[in-house]
């Protein structure tokens, strides 16, 4: 029993290590494939050839590719992700600086996703084959099929340009920038902590639209998963038992069936959160949201190799972490695996 658990943990750790190693390798390959001369990117096009040679040697670009790979691994494992050319500061600092904006956005979005997706999925499952189910199916498929950046723009046109309900691009109105103390990096929290209600409202108006649109994608994902999990449970015998007892349909659904899918849902939500990072890349570009996604696309367009590689690696790490987390949650909360 214990031995099998130990070997399982060892195996799991091995898989994670291999995956991490793969992530590093992949980012290295991508970095080397880049058509932009990394030296020129550092020194600018006007530098003379001796400077060029000096930087070229410093960066180790003359060495064989596997030596470069070795240095690269060494740097990465010691936590040195290099400097971003765009900002001049260490990439890791940049990432940590822009991260709160993305986390704030993604967190609100996941709340939207869970808040709408779960009830929608449960509703569809309990009304299976009826109009409501078909409508839900259509809605969630729409959610899957709409380009999130396009919805962002249409949202801006309608709610900002035409109706003027939403704030424009950015995290907060210009007037409030710097008008409150930064405790957490989350504007909604910071403005409240600073007691600046007007700034809070402004931040809310700015985050509402992008978060809602970002969340729509996970509404579809969470909704469809909830539906299929619920359908699976509702066809089980114990549901019939619950009905035989004379329980109301609401108790049957929420107390019996739903209780059985909570753990599965938790893992799905963790995965959906990872998916939001992907959507954030596009949504942040549309809404000029100064977060991780925008940082990544900016660096990409500027050919900033260090920043791109580190960002991609970072996202990979977040994904691996979320996967681990969802596994762990499963083990923690399901009585059958205890």
């Amino acid at each position: 029993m214990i031995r099998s658990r130990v070997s399982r943990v060892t195996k799991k750790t091995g898989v994670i290590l291999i995956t991490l190693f793969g992530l590093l390798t992949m980012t290295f390959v991508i970095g080397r494939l880049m058509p932009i001369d990394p030296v020129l990117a550092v020194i600018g096009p006007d530098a003379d050839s001796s400077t060029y040679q000096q930087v070229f040697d410093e960066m180790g670009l003359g060495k064989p590719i596997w030596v470069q790979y070795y240095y690269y691994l060494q740097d990465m494992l010691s936590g040195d992700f290099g400097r971003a050319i765009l900002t001049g500061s260490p990439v890791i600092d940049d990432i940590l600086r822009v991260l709160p904006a993305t986390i704030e956005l993604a967190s609100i979005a996941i709340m939207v996703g869970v808040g709408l997706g779960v009830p929608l999925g449960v509703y569809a499952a309990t009304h299976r084959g009826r109009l409501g189910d078909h409508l839900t199916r259509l809605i969630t498929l729409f959610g899957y099929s709409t380009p999130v950046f396009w919805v962002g723009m249409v949202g801006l046109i309608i709610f900002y340009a035409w109706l003027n309900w939403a704030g424009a691009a950015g995290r907060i109105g210009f007037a409030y920038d710097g008008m409150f103390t930064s405790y957490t990096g989350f504007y909604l929290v910071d403005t409240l902590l600073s007691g600046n209600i007007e700034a809070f409202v402004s931040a809310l108006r700015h985050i509402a639209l992008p978060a809602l649109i970002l969340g729509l994608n996970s509404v579809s994902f969470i909704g469809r998963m909830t539906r299929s999990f619920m359908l699976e449970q509702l066809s089980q015998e114990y549901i019939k038992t619950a009905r035989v007892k004379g329980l109301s349909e609401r108790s049957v659904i929420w107390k019996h069936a739903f209780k059985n899918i909570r753990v599965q849902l938790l893992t799905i939500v963790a995965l959906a959160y990872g998916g939001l990072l992907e959507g954030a890349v596009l949504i942040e570009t549309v809404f000029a949201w100064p977060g991780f996604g925008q940082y990544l696309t900016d660096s990409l367009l500027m050919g900033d190799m260090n920043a791109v590689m580190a960002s991609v690696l970072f996202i990979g790490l977040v994904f691996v972490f979320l996967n681990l987390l969802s596994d762990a949650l499963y083990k923690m909360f399901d009585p059958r695996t205890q």
Partner: protein
Amino acid sequence: MDVLTVEKLNVTFRTDEGLKHAVRDVSFTLRNEKLAIVGESGSGKSTVGKAILRLNPPSTRVTAEKLQFGKTNLLACNEKEIRAIRGQHISMIMQDPKFSLNPVMTVGEQISEALSVHRNISRREAKEAALEMLKEVSIADPEHVYSQYPHEISGGMGQRVMIAMMVIPEPDIIIADEPTSALDVSVQQDVLNILTRLIEKKNISLIFISHDLNLVKKFCDRVLVMYGGRVVESIKANELSNASHPYTRGLMESLPSLKHRRETLPVMTRDQNWLTQEYTT
């Protein structure tokens, strides 16, 4: 006294291939007795059980000239009224405790829930009643079992829990749908004994759905034999050996027996007319 009267019960399913007539003109009355419904798989015996509790899926059409429980017409009940009947007056023991108990709720919670749905009682009272009930189904350590999850207990234990759950609101009728088929032979008799003891003690009528004629012969008072959705014969259990219908006789014939050894078991020949003929009681 008639507890339950069923007259010309018909059940049809809507499927992709069209309508399927699963139960045709089934009639019987249940007194304070142990009534068995026997038949092969697909004969419609379980469907009858479900129809009484109106548990069939929404795509099913159930009609009857009469489906009367005491003074209540079960077919005319709305959703709320039928819920008041379920559990409290008529309940049902399922086949396999592995699937019929909720895997993420403790055994005890599930038993006390069966009581507290229908009674206005506190949690503690419900728990005490559940512990008492666990003792009644011969579980040695009720406190311990109360807080266990279904996957932690054995099949025989699970079925005892199931019985406890269905008996605790003290219903008038229990429908037992193959309650021992999923169990080891060694524990089947235990479970049946517990069931018999409890229903006799609490004065509960039983509808025992089974495919096992041998079992039914010993255990029940009266037997309905179903074939192709119809009742082909209704007979007292102790008169089964004198059954008149060829299908019942065929079933009896094909039972292997230790006392009367035979070279080969006869294979039943079936008659299309069985599907249309009226049976005579």
